[in-house]
Structures are given as C-alpha cells and as structure tokens.
C-alpha cells in the first residue's frame, strides 16, 4: 500500500523538478569555473617554474598536495560504506542516500588522480608509470586501485540509475530535445523487462561485492605510501585500518553535508527526512569511535616506549609546534562529535551539519598532520640549509593549486546531481508502494 500522500506523480515531480537550467545553477557553475581558472593559472606557474613555487623542499618534500591527495582518497571511500556495506547487511533506510554517496565517491576518486599529478615534478612523464610499471612500488598499486575503484563507483552510480533515466526521458517533457536524446541513449533501451531487471540486479550485486575490497585497497595502499618507510610517525603496522576508519569519518561527514544542501536547495525534505540525519548521526558516532580506537593505538603505543625518533615526533605533535592543530583535530574533529552524536537532539539536520563541517575541516588537517610533521624531524640532523628548507610553510600558489581539486569535486557533484535525480526514483517509488511506472 502506498504511504500516505505519496503518488507516482508526486514522487516523479519532486525528484526531477531540479533537472533544469535555472539561474542559481548557472551562477554557481560560473563562480566555480572562474575560481577554477584562477587556480589553473597558479598551476601553469608551477608547470613553468617547477615545484619550487610550492613551499615543499628537500626535507619536507611531501606537503599540502599529498595531504590533499590522502584527504580525497579518504572521502571517496564513503561510497563503499553506504551502498555496499550498509546495503548488503540489509539497511533499508539508505536508499535515498546511495546516489549522493556514489556521486561523492566518483567525484573524489576521479579528482584524487588529478591531485597526485599536481604533486609530480614531471607531470608530462605520467605515462612512465605505465610504461615502466614497477610491480614492487606502492605507487603502481595505488594508481591501479584508484582507477579501478573509480570505474567501479561510476558503474555503481550508473547501473541503478538506468531505470530513472528511462523515466525522465519519458516523463520530464520540459527538457530540451537534445537533453532527452542524451537520457534516451543513457537509458539503454530500458523497458522494465524481467530480462533487463535480472541483468541489472546481478551486475549491481557483483559491483557491491567487488567494491568492498577495492575501497579497502585504495586507502590501505595509500597508507602504505607512508607505512613502508622507516620514519617515526609513519612506521606503523596499523596504518591501513587507521586510514580506512579515518576515511569513513570524513566520508560520512561529507555525505551529511551534501544531504543537508540538497534537501534544502532541491526541496527534498520529504525524502531526506530527520530519520536519515538521525541514522547518519549514529553512523558518524560509530565510525568515529572506531577511529578513536585506532588513534589511541597509534599514539599510546609509541608514546609508551618513546624511542628516540618517536619521542621527538610525539613531543612536537602533543606539546610542541603542531600541538594546537593536533588538539583541535583530536578534540574538535573526533571527541566532541562522538559526544554530541550520543544525543538525539544533535542528530537533527542543522546541528549535525554544523558538526559535519567541523569534522570535515578537522579531517583535512588530520591528513596534514599525518603527512608533514614526520618529515620535519628525520633520523639525522638537518643542517647547513636555508631557513625555508627547515620548516614547511605553504605558499599562495600552492594553496591555490590545492583549492582547485575542491572546486573540481564541487563541479562534478553539482553536474551529476543536477542532471540526474539526487534520490533514486524507481527505488523510492517501489519502497513507498505507489503504482509502478509503466514503460510503454
């Protein structure tokens, strides 16, 4: 039986009315494009003059670009958690969130690949990675798994959407003809036949299973970029799960943020209800607790032994130069969110979104703290070098280049969720028990 107030007409209308070229969208895209052009100009400076335009030098040779990369890989992991993990264990409430989560996964995974190119001294030699691919290097593994995860996420975004595309093509008559042709091509002649549904269902099933190891791999391999070295702060056996659990925290926050935005702007409060925010709050609390557990291991165990290099590293983090940032990240981005998420009233849309923003900012700085401080105190003393080699300070050009990927992610998410329904149409209709859509 259909839920009260829901009809097929209403659902189709609610979930597709945002598919149009309105002024707000054009203005937003214009702003993003112009900002991106400014950032690309900064990148052209780097292409011309070398990586020296950034603040990185011989000792801290991985800076903001790399911590940005880790952040992007981390955020992309959420697609797997929502669709595959929660989906496979039979959580029904995730239906309206899957597309948002997959879109975030696709956007962040695609851009993560570009971020790493911006960190290369010789980007024009990117093909070397494939020509001379060295099986022993975690970079090859990373490139491989990120490409794979991106393709899997893209498929997992697309396959459940085929039916929706067929509906839009038939139902949303206000669209220009060319756009309807695009939907027609993309809908792959979908006519709701048992044969088609069987193939789609089986394909999605395969993808949901494959994406779990792929997602775990991307962040585990990314953590190995650090963990395979001997440096204090990176030389850790739990770096894989530490990174993966951290990624879930960042990704959950990103999804909450996106939920809030689309609910408000696309008027989806009938579909993204308080229940969803409430449940996401519980998810956030759970993954944060797991992350807290790994944090405890990561700092307490070396802190107990205080081996020489570890002692310096921990001192700088906990009480030294980076202490302010460190405690902001740990308290503001981890402890307080856990605490707030325990109370129902903070799991309402507005408070939880504010907390998600804090978590996301803290997540970015957390990556910064993982990447940079370790390099500032290697095993041997740093001597006879200019002052700017000693401490890492990002430059303006570098900051602009680091902003570019965020703009790109926003552009991709905006475009995907502008032209495709944010909430899965057919599935929602099915769940609400309304009359099914008849495909001629």
């Amino acid at each position, binding site marked *: 039986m259909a839920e009260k107030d829901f009809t097929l007409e209403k659902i189709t209308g609610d979930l597709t009315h945002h598919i149009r070229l309105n002024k707000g969208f054009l203005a937003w895209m214009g702003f993003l494009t112009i900002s991106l052009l400014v950032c690309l100009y900064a990148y052209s400076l780097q292409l011309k*003059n*070398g*990586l*020296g335009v950034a603040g*990185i*030098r*011989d*000792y801290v*040779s*991985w800076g903001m670009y790399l911590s940005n990369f880790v952040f992007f890989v981390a955020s992309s992991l959420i697609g797997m958690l929502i669709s595959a993990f929660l989906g496979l264990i039979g959580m029904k409430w995730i239906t309206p969130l899957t597309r948002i989560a997959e879109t975030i996964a696709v956007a962040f995974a695609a851009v993560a*690949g570009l971020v790493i190119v911006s*960190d*290369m*001294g*010789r*980007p024009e*030699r*990117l093909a*070397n*990675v*494939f*020509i*001379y*691919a*060295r*099986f*022993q*290097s*975690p*970079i*090859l593994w990373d*490139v*491989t798994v*990120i*490409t794979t995860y*991106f*393709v899997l996420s893209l498929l997992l975004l697309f396959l459940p959407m085929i039916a929706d595309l067929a509906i839009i093509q038939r139902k949303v008559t206000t669209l220009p003809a060319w756009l309807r042709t695009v939907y027609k091509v993309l809908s792959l002649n979908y006519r709701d036949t048992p044969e088609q549904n069987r193939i789609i269902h089986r394909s999605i099933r395969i993808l949901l299973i494959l994406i779990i190891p792929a997602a775990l791999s991307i962040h585990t391999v990314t953590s190995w*970029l*650090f963990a*395979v*070295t*001997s*440096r204090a702060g990176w030389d850790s056996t739990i770096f894989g799960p530490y990174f993966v659990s951290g990624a879930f925290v960042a990704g959950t926050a990103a999804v909450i943020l996106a939920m809030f935005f689309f609910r408000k702007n696309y008027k989806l409060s009938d579909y993204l209800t308080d229940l969803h925010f409430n449940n996401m709050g519980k998810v956030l609390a759970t993954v944060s607790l797991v992350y807290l557990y790994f944090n405890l291991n990561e700092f307490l165990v070396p802190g107990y032994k205080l081996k020489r290099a570890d002692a310096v590293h921990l001192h700088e983090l906990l009480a030294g130069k980076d202490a302010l940032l460190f405690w902001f990240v740990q308290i503001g981005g981890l402890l307080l969110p856990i605490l707030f998420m325990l109370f129902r009233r903070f799991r309402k849309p507005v408070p939880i979104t504010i907390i998600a923003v804090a978590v996301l900012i803290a997540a970015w700085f957390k990556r910064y703290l993982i990447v940079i401080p370790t*390099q500032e105190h*290697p*095993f*041997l*003393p*740093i*001597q*006879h*070098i*200019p*002052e*700017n*080699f000693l401490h890492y300070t990002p430059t303006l050009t570098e900051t602009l280049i680091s902003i570019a990927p965020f703009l790109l992610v926003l552009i991709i998410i905006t475009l995907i969720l502008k032209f495709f329904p944010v909430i899965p149409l057919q599935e929602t209709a099915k769940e609400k028990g309304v009359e099914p859509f008849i495909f001629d």
Partner: protein
Amino acid sequence: MEENDPIRPQQESEKSPSSRRDFLKNLGLAGVCVAAGGAALYSGHIFEAKKEGSGEQRVLLTQDGKLVKVDSLEIKAHEKTGTEQYQYLGREGIAGRRWVMVVDLSHCRNARRCITACQEAHHLRPEQYHINTLQMQDTPNTAPYHMPKNCQHCDNPPCVSVCPVDATYKRQDGIVLIDNERCIGCRFCIAACPYSARIFNWIEPKDAAQDEGLDYNVELNVPQKLGTVSKCLFSADRLREEKLPYCVSACPNGVYYFGDENEDAVTNGTTKETVRLSKLLRDNGGYQLMPELGTKPRVYYLPPKNRLFPFENQPDETPTKA
C-alpha cells in the same frame, strides 16, 4: 587516471563483444589470465636467459688491450653515442666490483672541501648536498663530532624499492643511481630514505643555461634536470677511469677511503695510501649508520675516537636563499 595500463593490454581485445555465449566468454577470460601471467614472468626469464648466455664464448680485445672472453649473446655492435651510451654504461655498472667507502670520523674537521668539490662536479646549488657534513652529538654526555654523510648506497635500498618507474636503481657494483630522464618527480624515494640523502631540483638547476644541449650523463647527473631527484653517485663516472670520487680526492684531512670490497682494499683520498678494508674496519671499530634498519649500507664509519682535530662549533655556514 588513464586505464591503458601496459601490463593489461589483453583487455583491449576483450572489450569487443565477440560472442554472446557465456561459455566462450569465460574461456576467453581464462585465456587472458594465463597469457598475462605468462607475459609478466617472461621478462624475468629473458633476464635469466641473458645471464646464462648461449654458452658460446668469443675472445675479444678490449680498449685497454686485454683479451676477454665474452658470451656471444652479450656482443653488441658498439654504435651507441652520447646519452644512449651513457645510459647503457650507467645501467650496466662495472662487473665484478662492489664499491665501498670508509669515513674516518677522527680525521674530519669540517673543512667542507668534499662538499664544494661535489657540488662543482654535479652542478649543484650551495644548498643542494649530495654529501654534507653534520655536527653530531649522540647523547648529551658524549662528545660532539663532525660526520660527513652522503648516500649510503644500501644493499637493501628503501628508496629503490618504492620507485614506480625504475628511475632509481641499484647496479651490480653496488651503486644506487638515479636516471633524471625517467624520474617522474614523485619524491617517494626522498620520503623512504632514512639518511635524508636525496635532494630535488625544485627550481631551474644552477647551470641550466650553460648545460643546455649537453648529453645527459646518468653517472654524473649532469645536466641536472628540473623536477627530478638527484643524489650522490659515488662518482660513478670517475670510477670508470680508475679515479677516486670527487669528494674523496678533495679531502685535505685523510677522512675518506674508497675501494672495492671484492678486492678487500680501500685507498685514502688524501694520502693515496692503499690499505686492506677488512683490517681497517677490524682495527678501528668500523660501523655503519643505523644498521638496525636493515638497509645494509656500503658506507662504513670509523668512530671519532682520538680525534686529530678538536670539535670547533663553527657557525653554520648557511647559504642564503637561492
């Protein structure tokens, strides 16, 4: 990221829907697996086969007038010139040698002649060190000393392990080199090196204009290339000419010994005196830097005991920002 990974070229053919029947498809997939696995191992086999040779030996006359026996597979027309020739020699290394350096800390007084000689030879800026002397003090109660530190040319080099493109590699004679024409500038090697021995060309290299058009020599890292990593090369180009490395010859204080571990002999760069490596290390308590990391360095240190020069806390001669 692109997905045309050359180690999976077989997928291209798989993309065309050849048959609708699942059976054929599965068969095809299995075939691809076998083919790719085989191809991956094949390169390794070629490497082995090349080493074992054809068994057919030829006698040749070398440039320095020696008769040598060479496997007929190894004989190649010698037409390589310039960079190509440098690349060939640079990847090959000198057969039968295992270079080793001994640094006598009791002799070092931070004259820094090694550094200037090195930077001149490799066209480096003043803040770019293939070798640097560090002021060390192991514990608060032990005496400070000067320690020259260059690439340790490890036998288990962490930097080489992580390189995605074989740009940095270890040669049969023990030297770890970097090919600036292949390096993609990812700096994973810099992150992996526990001795902070690697540097990067962040900005246009010092002599870029004057080195324009010069054949790139992988054994010298000259011309230096923007956006790539550079490091100590044990002066691989000099060793080929039976000359000691630039830093070793430049030292005025007899700090450095350099030689071939296989010959059990090292020669002092200042006095040109040749001594037995094993005896030198045994008699003077030779040790390695951070051996607990398992990197197996090819550089040994003699402890700074009975120092010939008192420790002078010289002002840090920091070069100004480039």
